[in-house]
C-alpha cells in the first residue's frame, strides 16, 4: 500500500515536472510578446493606481452628500474590478493555446513527444493561468498599497481572501473553458468567436458580484465562489475528457455538415445501442424487446441520481411548509362534486383534458432536455425539482388544514403520478445524460458524435416509452384522479 502511494507520488511529481516544462516555455513566450505584456503591465500597475485615485475621489464626493456607505462599498468593489481585469487576458492566452499552435504547425512536434494528454493539458492550462493571475495579484497589491497610503484603508481579511479566491476561480473558469474551445476548433478566428460563450456569462457574473459587493452580501459571494469551483471542476473534467491528439490533428476544417450530423443521428436512432446486437430484425419489436431495456439498464445511475434529487426536493418542500405553516382554517379541503368541471383555464397550466395534459408534460420535458444540454444536465434536474417541491409543500401543509398528508398524496398525486412520475424521472435522466455527453463523450467517439448518440437515445426513450406513459398518465389525471378526489374528500 505504502509502496503504491510512493510510486503514485513519484509518478505525479514526474508528470508535474513534464507539464511544468510546457508551462515554463509558454510563460516565457507570453512574457516575450509585447502585445500581451504592455496591456497586462498597464492593467497591473497603472489601472490600480487610477482606481485608487477614483476610490479616494469618490469617497470624498459621496461623503459630502452623506452617502458614506456608497463610498465604503466602492472600495471593495473596485478591489474586485482591479483583480478581474488582468485575468481577462488568461482567456486570450488560453484560446490560442492549442489552435494557435496548430495554425503555426508547432503542435505536431509537441504531440510526438512522450507527454501524456493530461501533462499537455495541465501544462498549457497552467501556462494560460499563471501570468494573468500573478498580474492580478500584483494589481491588487498595488491598489491596496495605494489605498493604505491614501486612506489608511485595510481590507477585511475575509473580503481579501474572497476576492483572491474569486479571481483565481474566475481565471480557471475562463482558462478551462477556453482550452475546451481551443482544442475543439481549427482556427484562432473560430475560437475567438466561440469565446462569447465564456465572455457573456462572465460579464453577467461580474455584474452579479458587483451587485453583491454594493449590497455587502459577502455570504452570497461565497456561494458564487462555490458554484465557480463546481463549474471549474466540470470544465476541467470536460477538457481532459475531450482533449486528445486525434481530435487536435485529425480535424482540418470546421465544417457545419448538417447532412453528416443527420446521418449519424439517424444511424444511432435506427440501430441498437452501440456495443449490443439484437435478435429481432424489425425495428419496433426490437426497440421494445432490446433497445429500451438496454438503455434503461445503462441509465440506472442517472435515474437513481434524479430520483434522489426529487426526494430531496420533496423534503425541502415539506420542511418549508413546516417553517411557514398555513393559518388554521384558512383552507378547507372539502371538494364538491363539480369542482373539476369548474376549473378555469389558467395561462401556463393545461386544460383538464388528456391531450392538453400530455402535451404540456411533454413540452416541459423537452424544455428540460434543451436546458440540460446547456447546463451539463443540471437545469433538467432543477426543473423537475420545482413541482416535486411544491408537492412537498402541499403535503407538509396538509396537517395544518386538518388533513392527512399521506391521504392527500394518495388521492391527488398517486393515481396518475404512479405513471407520470417514473416517466418524468426517466425523461430527466435522459436529459441529464444529454447534458453530460458534452462533458464526457463515450470512448472512441468525438464530442459531436457523443451528443448525437445521447440525442438519439433521448428521442428513442421519449417516443417509445415516455410518450405512451404520459398519454396514460394524462388519461388517469383527467378521468381517475378527480373521481377519487371527489369521492374521498
Amino acid at each position, binding site marked *: 500500500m505504502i509502496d503504491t502511494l510512493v510510486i503514485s507520488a513519484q509518478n505525479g511529481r514526474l508528470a508535474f515536472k*513534464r507539464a511544468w*516544462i*510546457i508551462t515554463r*516555455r509558454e510563460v516565457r*513566450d507570453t512574457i*516575450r*510578446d509585447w502585445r500581451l505584456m504592455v496591456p497586462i503591465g498597464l492593467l497591473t500597475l497603472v489601472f490600480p493606481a487610477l482606481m485608487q485615485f477614483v476610490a479616494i475621489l469618490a469617497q470624498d464626493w459621496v461623503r459630502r452628500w452623506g452617502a458614506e456607505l456608497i463610498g465604503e462599498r466602492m472600495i471593495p468593489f473596485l478591489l474586485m474590478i482591479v483583480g478581474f481585469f488582468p485575468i481577462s487576458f488568461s482567456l486570450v492566452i488560453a484560446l490560442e493555446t492549442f489552435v494557435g499552435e496548430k495554425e*503555426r*504547425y*508547432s*503542435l*505536431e*512536434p*509537441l*504531440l*510526438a*513527444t*512522450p*507527454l*501524456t494528454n493530461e501533462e499537455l493539458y495541465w501544462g498549457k492550462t497552467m501556462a494560460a493561468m499563471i501570468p494573468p493571475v500573478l498580474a492580478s495579484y500584483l494589481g491588487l497589491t498595488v491598489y491596496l498599497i495605494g489605498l493604505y497610503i491614501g486612506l489608511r484603508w485595510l481590507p477585511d481579511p475575509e473580503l481579501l481572501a474572497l476576492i483572491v479566491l474569486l479571481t483565481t476561480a474566475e481565471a480557471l473558469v475562463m482558462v478551462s473553458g477556453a482550452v475546451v474551445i481551443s482544442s475543439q476548433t481549427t482556427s484562432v478566428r473560430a475560437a475567438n468567436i466561440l469565446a462569447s460563450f465564456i465572455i457573456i456569462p462572465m460579464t453577467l457574473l461580474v455584474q452579479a458580484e458587483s451587485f453583491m459587493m454594493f449590497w455587502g452580501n459577502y455570504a452570497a459571494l461565497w456561494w458564487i465562489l462555490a458554484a465557480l469551483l463546481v463549474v471549474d471542476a466540470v470544465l476541467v473534467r470536460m477538457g481532459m475528457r475531450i482533449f486528445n*491528439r*486525434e481530435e487536435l*490533428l*485529425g480535424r482540418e476544417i470546421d465544417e457545419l455538415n448538417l447532412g*453528416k450530423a443527420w446521418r449519424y443521428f439517424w444511424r444511432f436512432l435506427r440501430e441498437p445501442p452501440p456495443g449490443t446486437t439484437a435478435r429481432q430484425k424489425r425495428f419496433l419489436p426490437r426497440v421494445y424487446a432490446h433497445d429500451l431495456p438496454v438503455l434503461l439498464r445503462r441509465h440506472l445511475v442517472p435515474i437513481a441520481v434524479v430520483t434522489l434529487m426529487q426526494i430531496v426536493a420533496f423534503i425541502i418542500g415539506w420542511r418549508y411548509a413546516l417553517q411557514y405553516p398555513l393559518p388554521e382554517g384558512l383552507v378547507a379541503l372539502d371538494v364538491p362534486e363539480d369542482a373539476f368541471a369548474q376549473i378555469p383555464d389558467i395561462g401556463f397550466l393545461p386544460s383538464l383534458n388528456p391531450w392538453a395534459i400530455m402535451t404540456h408534460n411533454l413540452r416541459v420535458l423537452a424544455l428540460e432536455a434543451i436546458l440540460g444540454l446547456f447546463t451539463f444536465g443540471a437545469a433538467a434536474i432543477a426543473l423537475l425539482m420545482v413541482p416535486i417541491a411544491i408537492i412537498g409543500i402541499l403535503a407538509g401543509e396538509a396537517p395544518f388544514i386538518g388533513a392527512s398528508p399521506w391521504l392527500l398524496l394518495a388521492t391527488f398525486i398517486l393515481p396518475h403520478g404512479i405513471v407520470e412520475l417514473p416517466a418524468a424521472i426517466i425523461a430527466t435522466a435522459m436529459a441529464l445524460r444529454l447534458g453530460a455527453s458534452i462533458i464526457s463523450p463515450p470512448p472512441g467517439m468525438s464530442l459531436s458524435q457523443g451528443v448525437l448518440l445521447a440525442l438519439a437515445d433521448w428521442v428513442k426513450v421519449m417516443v417509445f416509452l415516455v410518450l405512451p406513459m404520459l398519454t396514460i398518465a394524462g388519461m388517469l389525471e383527467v378521468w381517475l384522479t378527480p373521481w377519487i378526489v371527489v369521492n374521498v374528500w
Partner: protein
Amino acid sequence: MILTEGLYKQFDDFVAVRGIDLHVPKGEILALLGPNGAGKTTTVRMLASILRPTRGRAWIAGHDVVKEAVTVRRLVGVLTETPGLYGRMRAREYLRFFGELQGMPRAAIDVRSEQLMAQFGMDGVWHLRLGEYSKGMRQKMALIRTLLHDPPVLLLDEPTSAMDPHSAKQVRDAILTLRSADRAIIICTHNLAEAELIADRIAIIRRGEIVARGSATQLKRDLLGAPILEVRTANPLNGARRLIDDLIQIEAEGDTWLRYRTETPEQVNPLLIDRLSRAGYRVVTLSEVPRPLEEVYLQVVEKQSSMEEVRQTQ
C-alpha cells in the same frame, strides 16, 4: 524494428489508410512514395502514436503503438511535414525544451545539440531567433530536434523539402550515416530520385494502400520488365543483326548502337561481345540504360487508376 499488421485508419466517412502491412528491420531505410493524400502522413502519425489506428496493429521496437504510446513516442523521432518551430526561441533554448520533454539531462542535451548543429552546418546561428531562420535552416533545425534524443526509429516526412541542393545533400548524407547506426528509418517523400538514392526499399502508397513494394531495382524489373542494355561500337553496326538475332531481342538500334533486353545478362553479354568482336565490330561500351524510378511510379499509378475505372464501371 517497425512492424505493422493491417493498419487501417478512418476519419468519419473517409478512409485514409487501408490495411497497410510493413516491416522495416534495423539498419534499413524504407521510402513511402505516393501522391498527396495517399495516406503517408497518417501512417507516420499512427506509427508515432499520435493517431490511433481504427483497425490493425503496429509495433515500434516491440512496443504496441496504442497500448504503449508514451514508450513509443520516446523511441521515435518524428520529422513533421512542416518544421513548426517556436519563432521567438533560439536554438539552444528550443533544443533544451524538446530534450527535457524526452527526459534528457541538460548537459547531454547541450553536447548533442552542439554536435548536431555542427554536423548540419548550423553552428554559426546559435544567436538567431528561430523565426529569423531561412526555410532550409528551419528544416534542418526540425531535423536536429528529431535526432536530438538519438531515437532508434526515425519517421521523416519530406526531410529535404524546401531545402537548397547543398542543404538537401547534407541531410541526405546525414540520413545515410544514420542507417549505419542501427536504426530503422521511414521516409515519406514525393522526390523519386531521393527515394532511389537513400532507400533500401520503396513502398508506393496510393489511396491508403501499398500498391507496389521492393528495392528500386526489383520494382523496375517487376514493373518495367528486364533491364535494357545498350552496346556501343566504334564502327557502324551494318549487318550485325544476323550475327546476334538468336542471342538477343533488339529493341532499338542506331548506326553504332543497339539496345536489347535480356533476363540473363551474365550469360548473354559475354557471348554478345565475343561475337561482335570476332566479326570486327569494336565494342566501346556495354551498359544498362538508366530507367528512372519515375517510370515505375507512373506505371503503378496509371495501372491503379485504370483498375479503379474498371471497378467503377462494373
